[in-house]
C-alpha cells in the first residue's frame, strides 16, 4: 500500500469477521419451499390446486392398495378375508390374483414343464445384442449374435434342432457362394449367386435334409404351438422380433426414399405413406383375414408369424421416416466429403453418413420402438392372448370373476417399466454419443 493511501484511510480492519449464517427464511427447507412452492400468488394457487388434485387421486387409491390382500385362492376368499380384517365393505385390493395367475400373465399357455425356455431365449437375445450395443466387447461374441436367431426360434417353438440348423446352413451357403463367385466374377454376380444359391437350397434340399437328420439324430425339445404363446412372452416375442427386423428394413427404406433413382424412391415413398396412413389394427386385420388370399392356395402359415411380419413391415415405415429425418439433418458437406474421398455409395453410407445419421435419429428410433412395444397389445383384437386379453380371460374364470383394477395395474406397471427403461436408455445413449461439446 502506498504511503499516501495509508494516510487517507482513517480506519482499517485487520481481522476478518466470522461468516454469519444466512437468515432463517433464506436457508434450508424454508427457502426451498418459498422458492419452489410459494414464490407468488399464482404459485401459491397452483400449489394448493396440485395438493388438492393429489388428494383427490390418492385418498381412495392408496388405502385400497395398501390394504391389499396377497394370499387368497379366489375373489370370494379375498372378500371374506377383507371383511374379517377391515370390516364389511371396506375397499381393499385383491393382489392375490397376481400371485395366483402371474404365470399365465407372463407365459400364457406355455407348457408348465417348459417354462425355463422363454427366459433362456430372452437371455440369449440379450447376450446377442450386447456386442452390438457395447463396442468394447470382444468381436468374437458376434458369432453368438449370428447364431442367436436360430437358437431363440428353436428354444421358443421347440421341435428337432435340425430345422433351424438346416435353415442356418442356407445362410452359410449364401455366404460361401458370395465369397467364391464375387472373387471370380465381380460383386454383382456374387450378390446374385448369394441370393440364388440359398433360395434354391431352401426350396429343394432343406426339408428332406431336416427330415433325414431328425431321423438319424433325434435331438429336440417338446414342440410348442404358437397358440400357446401368451401374456408378456407374446408381447416380448412380437416386440423384440419387430424391433430387430424393422431397423435394417427401415434403414434400407430411408436410403431408398432419398435415392436419386426415380423408380426406387417413388416405390419407397408409396410404401411408407400407405403403411403410415392406415392404422395398425387394419394391417393386423389384413394379416388375419386377407393374407391368405394373396398366397398360393394351400399355404397356411402361423398367425403369430403373420403378425410378426405385419408388425415389422408397419414399424419399418415409421423407422424409415425417423432415419430420413436424420439423413436430412446431416450437413451436405458430409456427403460431398465422402464423394471427394472417392468412396462408393455403400462405403460412403456405411462409413460416413449412416453412423452420424443414426446417432441423430436415436431418440426417434427408440420412440418408435416404444410405440411398437406398446402396440403389441393390439394383437388382442385379432384374438391372440396378449396381457390385455389374458387379463380378460382370467376375469372370465369363476375364481376371479369381477376383478378389475388389480390386473390392469399389474399389466400397466410392467409395460411402464419396460418403456420407461427404454426411454431412459436412449437418453443415456444420446448423451454418450454426443461429440459436439467436447
Amino acid at each position: 500500500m502506498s504511503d499516501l493511501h495509508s494516510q487517507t484511510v482513517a480506519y482499517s480492519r485487520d481481522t476478518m469477521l466470522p461468516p454469519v449464517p444466512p437468515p432463517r427464511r433464506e436457508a434450508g427447507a424454508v427457502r426451498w419451499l418459498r422458492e419452489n412452492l410459494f414464490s407468488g400468488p399464482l404459485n401459491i394457487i397452483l400449489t394448493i390446486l396440485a395438493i388438492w388434485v393429489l388428494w383427490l387421486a390418492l385418498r381412495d387409491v392408496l388405502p385400497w392398495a395398501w390394504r391389499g390382500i396377497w394370499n387368497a385362492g379366489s375373489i370370494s376368499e379375498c372378500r371374506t378375508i377383507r371383511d374379517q380384517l377391515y370390516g364389511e365393505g371396506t375397499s381393499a385390493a385383491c393382489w392375490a390374483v397376481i400371485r395366483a395367475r402371474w404365470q399365465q400373465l407372463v407365459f400364457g399357455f406355455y407348457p408348465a414343464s417348459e417354462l425355463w425356455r422363454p427366459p433362456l431365449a430372452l437371455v440369449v437375445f440379450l447376450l446377442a445384442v450386447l456386442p452390438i450395443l457395447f463396442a468394447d466387447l470382444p468381436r468374437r461374441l458376434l458369432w453368438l449374435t449370428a447364431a442367436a436367431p436360430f437358437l431363440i426360434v428353436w428354444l421358443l417353438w421347440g421341435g428337432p434342432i435340425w430345422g433351424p440348423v438346416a435353415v442356418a446352413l442356407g445362410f452359410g451357403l449364401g455366404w460361401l457362394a458370395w465369397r467364391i463367385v464375387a472373387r471370380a466374377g465381380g460383386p454383382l454376380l456374387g450378390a446374385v449367386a448369394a441370393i440364388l444359391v440359398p433360395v434354391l437350397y431352401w426350396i429343394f434340399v432343406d426339408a428332406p435334409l431336416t427330415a433325414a437328420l431328425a431321423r438319424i439324430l433325434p435331438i429336440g425339445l417338446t414342440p410348442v404351438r404358437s397358440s400357446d404363446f401368451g401374456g408378456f412372452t407374446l408381447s416380448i416375442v412380437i416386440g423384440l422380433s419387430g424391433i430387430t427386423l424393422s431397423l435394417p428394413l427401415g434403414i434400407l427404406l430411408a436410403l431408398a426414399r432419398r435415392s436419386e433413382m426415380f423408380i426406387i424412391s417413388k416405390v419407397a415413398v408409396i410404401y411408407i405413406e400407405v403403411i403410415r396412413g392406415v392404422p395398425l389394427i387394419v394391417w393386423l386385420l389384413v394379416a388375419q383375414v386377407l393374407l391368405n388370399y394373396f398366397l398360393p392356395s394351400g399355404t397356411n402359415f402361423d398367425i403369430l408369424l403373420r403378425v410378426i411380419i405385419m408388425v415389422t413391415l408397419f414399424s419399418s415405415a415409421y423407422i424409415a421416416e425417423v432415419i430420413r429425418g436424420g439423413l436430412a439433418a446431416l450437413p451436405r458437406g458430409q456427403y460431398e466429403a465422402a464423394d471427394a474421398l472417392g468412396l462408393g455409395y455403400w462405403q460412403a453410407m456405411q462409413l460416413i453418413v449412416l453412423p452420424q445419421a443414426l446417432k441423430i435419429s436415436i431418440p426417434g428410433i427408440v420412440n418408435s420402438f416404444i410405440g411398437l412395444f406398446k402396440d403389441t397389445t393390439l394383437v388382442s383384437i385379432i384374438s391372440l392372448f396378449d396381457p390385455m386379453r389374458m387379463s380378460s380371460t382370467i376375469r372370465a374364470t369363476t375364481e376371479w370373476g369381477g376383478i378389475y383394477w388389480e390386473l390392469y395395474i399389474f399389466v400397466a406397471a410392467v409395460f411402464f417399466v419396460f418403456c420407461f427403461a427404454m426411454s431412459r436408455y436412449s437418453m443415456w445413449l444420446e448423451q454418450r454419443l454426443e461429440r459436439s461439446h467436447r
Partner: protein
Amino acid sequence: MTIAAEPPRQGFRPSQLLQDSRYRGLTIQVIALALLLALIAFLVRNLVVNLAALGKDFDFGFLGNRAGYDINQALIPYTNNDSHARAALVGILNTLLVAALGCVTATVVGVLAGVLRLSKNWLVGRLMTVYVEAFRNVPLLLWIVLVYAVLSESTPAPAAFRGEDAQASRLFGLIAFTNRGTYIPWPVWGEGAGVLGIVLLLSIAAAIGWRIYARRRQEATGRPLPVLWVTLAILVLPFLVVFVLLGAPVTLDVPTVRETGIARFDGGVNVLNSLVALWIALALYTGAFIAEIVRAGILSVSKGQTEAAFALGLRPGRTMRLVILPQALRVIVPPLISQYLNLTKNTSLAVAVGYADVRATLGGVTMNQTGRELESILLLGLFYLIVSLIISGVLNVYNQRIALKER
C-alpha cells in the same frame, strides 16, 4: 485461345450398364421394377386363383344391400333397413366425431400440461412429469379399457340421482355421469332463435372488422387500440341484450331422472360411455405427447429472444405473443399435426369398448355379414389413407408457409 479437346467419343458398350455409374442406376432400377412387377403379378394371380376357388368375386355391389344391423350411435338418421354404404357412412362420421373431439381436448390438455411442466412450481412440475410419463409409457388400449371400466364400474346408476338427498349429483347441476352413459344438457331452439343466431353472426363480423381497423390504425399512427376487451364486448353485449329482449328463446334441456318407475333420465342427450371413454383416453394419451412437443417448442426459443424483447421495452404479455410464440409455433405445429394424425388413426381402437366407428361397422359387422373381406378392408384402408393424406397435405402447406426464407 485453346480449344478444349473433346474426350474421345466411344460408342455405347453394354458393359457400361454394369460398370459405369452413369448407367448402372438405370440397370438397377429396371431390375427392381421387373422384380416388383413380378411380385405384384404373383400376388394378383394368387388372388384370382383363390377367389375363384372360393367362388367369390370382386364386387362392391354389396354396399347397396340392406345392412340389417343396428348401430348404437348414429349422427345421421339410420335404421337397420338402410344400406351397408350408409352404415359405413355412420361409422365414418362416428370416427370423425371422436377424432375431432379428441384433437381439441388433447390440444388443450397438452398445452396446459406442457406449460405447467415448465412451471417453477416444483410440485406442479413433478405432477405433470408423472402424468406425461404415465401416459406415454403405457399402451393406449389399456388406458381406453381402464377409462371405460372407471366409467361403467365406478359411476352411479341412474337410480342414485333420485330424491332430495340423492347419493349422486350432477356436475354443476347439468351433467350426469352414470353407468348408462353420460347425460348432457342440450339447447332447445325456441321462437326467435334465428334472430339470435343472426345477431351472433353480425357481432362476429363486427369484431373482426374492429380488429382490422385497430391494426390499420396502429400501422398508420403507431397508437394501439384496445382489442381484447372491445372484441369481448362486441361479442357478448348485443347477444345478451337480444337474448333478454326476446325473452330467452334458447333454453337448455337439462337431463332429469324419473322419480318413479324405472330409473332413467329424461331430456338432454345421452352420450355413450364408450364414446366418453374413447374421448377421454385419446385426449389424455395424445395430450401427454403434445405436452412434450409444447415443452420442447418453448425451450427451443433461446433466452436471448426474451431478453432482447425486454430490452426493446416490450411487456411480458407482448413478448410472449409477438416474439416467443411465433418462433415456438414453428417448432410446435408440425409434430402437433402429426399427433392429430396419430389420434385419428388411434380411434380405430374403438373396437375395444364397442364404439361404432368405421372399423366396427364397415370393417366389423358388414365384413363378417357379407364375407367381403377384401372389399371391406380395401375401403377401410382407403378411408384412413385419405384422411391421413389430407392431414399431411395441410402439414406440408403449413411447412412451406413458415419455412425460413433464406437468401
